[in-house]
């Protein structure tokens, strides 16, 4: 298999291998925190931080760690970065930390991170691992923001807390609740599959 260019390595996270719509990883956090855009931003930044730094470390020590204990060491590394993110949020952004509730500590078991550490960072050079991590984070954040935007708008009439739909619009409370998250996620995956299908079909016809 030919090596991807750096560009491709980054952009695959946005579409072809988007962690949420393609790999269906990290869905728990996507469903839980996408009821407001601000939560999506905070969660996205926390995940990006953890993903990039664990990719860096995992890639650095990939030749030292014996195969049998690799998962254990990856988890320790990931958990450390998650704890740092959690403490720093609580210390400097108490409002956000409160809104995120238990979902920051739960990044430890977010499959995107262990998945990328295992599938990519532990097999590639540091630079490439970081690019991959950045691409994956970008894909995750964008999906989260898209969902947060639609759910907050329909469920609460607001964008980032500012009211943009008038009183005439009766909020769809279901959008803020777990069922709304599932419905929205399903629709987003369906639409992205449809677009992907159309693109591939067009590519087939010369």
């Amino acid at each position: 298999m030919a090596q991807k260019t750096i560009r491709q390595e980054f952009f695959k996270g946005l579409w072809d291998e988007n962690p949420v719509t393609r790999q269906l990883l990290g869905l728990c956090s996507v469903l839980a925190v996408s009821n407001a855009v601000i939560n999506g931003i905070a969660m996205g930044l926390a995940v990006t931080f953890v993903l990039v730094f664990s990719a860096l470390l995992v890639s650095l020590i990939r030749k030292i760690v014996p195969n049998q204990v690799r998962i254990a060491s990856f988890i320790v590394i990931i958990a450390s970065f998650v704890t740092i993110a959690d403490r720093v949020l609580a210390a400097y952004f108490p409002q956000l930390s409160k809104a995120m509730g238990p979902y920051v500590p739960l990044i430890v078991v977010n499959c995107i991170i262990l998945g990328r550490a295992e599938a990519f960072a532990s097999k590639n050079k540091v630079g490439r691992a970081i690019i991959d991590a950045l691409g994956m984070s970008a894909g995750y954040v964008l999906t989260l923001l898209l969902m947060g935007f639609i759910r907050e708008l329909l469920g609460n009439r607001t964008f980032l807390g500012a009211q943009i739909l008038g009183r005439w619009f009766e909020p769809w409370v279901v959008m803020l609740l777990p069922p709304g998250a599932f419905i929205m996620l399903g629709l987003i995956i369906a639409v992205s599959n449809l677009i992907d299908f159309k693109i591939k079909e067009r590519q087939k016809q010369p």
Partner: protein
Amino acid sequence: MNLSTRMIVVLTAVGLLSGSFLAIVGQVTKERIIFNKRHEIEMAALKVVPGASSVKMIYEERDFAVFEDRDEAGNLLGYALQAAGTGFQDKIVLEIGVNAELTTILGLTIIEQKETPGLGAKITSEEDFLRYWQNRDCTKELTLRKPPVEDPGALASNEVNAITGATISSRAVLNIVNEAIKKARQLQTEGKLSGIN
């Protein structure tokens, strides 16, 4: 080095390094996190008694605390009661501002809640809920107005609006407030509040 020694060495090293690094981060952020918690509670205590410029905790027990609110001249304006109770999903922590005679509720603010977003979580909304809690007569038990009315003036003096679709959360807040007022009154008769100066 054979495999098992290498496994032990690597895992120990990873654990030790992470552990010590976390200890440092924990130390650095600890003070600030405690400060944030205290700051949040004190700000809320200031907010619920209009015109107050300083607060001092004068009584504390599990899930209940009393703050004294004074203005710049040092006159006692009232108390902020911090109280907690069970909501629909989890504990609700709130603060109630009352005047020094414990006869009027001046204001209410919610510090912690995990009610349903879009329904019960509206207890934190100024427009839908909190504004109906200003200047309530608490010499009698407070009661809920269901269905809610738009104009605060249409409520009886000891009535507060319920939130449509979130009666349980509204009632939870109401019960916490009623309990807290009772407790404060008890403390007052025992002479544990500083009283009117």
